[in-house]
């Protein structure tokens, strides 16, 4: 048996980061990944991008490599949300949900991409993801459709606030 040449060969697991991830809804599922790679074959982002690979993302999650997962070079926004990995994973890891949990961590730090932030802002202020304009109701009228309904924003905003302290994120 060969002995490790030096300490640098040893990857250290960042348990602190993994605990934070596990606090997000479904973020704890990552631990069941046994690195089989079944999630890679049907992944369109992996097919069309050299740098994106859901199995590698899961490996980094298992080690807790926060800088690579959430740093400026993070590839997680390349995921197309297609759910093929969720379909394929024999361990019910739901890799796409782990990617989304990672995105939740970035969003909480204010580090989501601008286009994502714009849609989120529209939803949080209007209750819809397409901003309302009178032109919309005019177009609808041409098809004999009633105007867009009202969204009770007081209710939506109440739901966006945690009910208790220490609620999962």
């Amino acid at each position, binding site marked *: 048996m060969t002995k490790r040449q030096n300490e640098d060969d040893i990857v250290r697991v960042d348990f602190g980061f993994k605990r934070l991830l596990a606090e*997000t*809804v*479904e973020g704890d599922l990552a631990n069941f990944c046994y690195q089989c790679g079944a999630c890679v074959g*049907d992944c*369109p*982002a992996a097919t*069309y*991008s050299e740098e*994106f690979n859901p199995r590698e993302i899961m490996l980094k999650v298992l080690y807790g490599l926060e800088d690579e997962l959430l740093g400026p070079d993070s590839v997680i*926004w*390349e995921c*197309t*949300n*297609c*759910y*093929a990995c*969720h*379909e394929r994973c024999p361990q019910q890891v*739901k890799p796409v949900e782990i990617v*989304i*949990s990672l*995105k*939740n961590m970035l*969003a*909480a730090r204010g580090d*989501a*991409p601008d*286009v*994502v932030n714009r*849609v*989120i802002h529209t*939803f949080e202020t209007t*209750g*819809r*993801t*397409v901003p309302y304009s009178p032109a*919309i109701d005019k*177009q*609808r009228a*041409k*098809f*004999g*459709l009633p105007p*867009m*309904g*009202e*969204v*009770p924003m007081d*209710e*939506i905003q*109440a*739901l*966006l*606030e*945690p*009910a*208790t302290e220490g*609620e*999962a*994120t």
Partner: protein
Amino acid sequence: MKRFAFFPGCLIPARHPAMEFAIRETLPKLDIELVDLEGASCCPDPIYFKSKDKLSWLAVAARNLCLAEELGVDLVTNCSGCTATLSETYHMLHDDPDVKDQVNQRLAKIGKTYKGTSKIRHIATVVRDEAGYEKIRNSVTHPLVGLKVAIHYGCHLLKPSKIMNVDNPDDPSVLENLIRALGAEPVRHRNWYLCCGKACQNEDIPNNMMHDLLGSVHDEQADVLGMICPTCFGQFDHGQMKIAKLFEEDFHTPPVYYFQLLALAQGVPYDQLGFQKQRFKPTVLQQFEEAAAPPA
């Protein structure tokens, strides 16, 4: 008449009213009644808002489901994204009592409780299961004979199959059968399982993907690309202009939302279906206006 709460979402009523019009025109002819959901919000979307905060996303989705529960009916969606959000919420709140508890604590603030009594049905499965292909076929007055419709299932209609419960994601048939019921010919091109790429934030990926997909539709000489999701539709209509420029290749493949095709086959004139607003207009459909079936 079977009744359903109608959850139109944001994209179809705001950006594609022609699709909503087609749904409201065609479903009564299949004995399906839609009840409007007062006060419904965005589902919320499974791409952007879910990326921000999953628990808030679940809570708002659960509120929408509560509205259908209050009416005592199942809920029908016309967008694959809404279907994904609402079905996933339904399943997660069923499987995880802790998350359900947290969601209900938030809902208590607005005087609501999520129970899990209304199921979520994508409109394609409602017409398949409640009406059936035979009834759809019988509702057709202007059969689309000779029309080749390439199929695009999109992702969220089929996957994850345990949650969506629609069809076999590796070999689905619902869209093909729905197209066949109109007298048209469905075409499964070699990239039929590809995604539209809308959620991806690295443009190169969806660009190359759409280029490959449109290329395979072109090779099959299909007349239109049939789909059941407004997000995919936007990618292949607006997005196709970008692809044509970028790759200097104009495949000119008009996308068509299935229920507009059904409306046309049921005799709604081409001009009333909003096709002229598309970037890529399916003018090939105009010929079917005159070709009414001879009276029986």
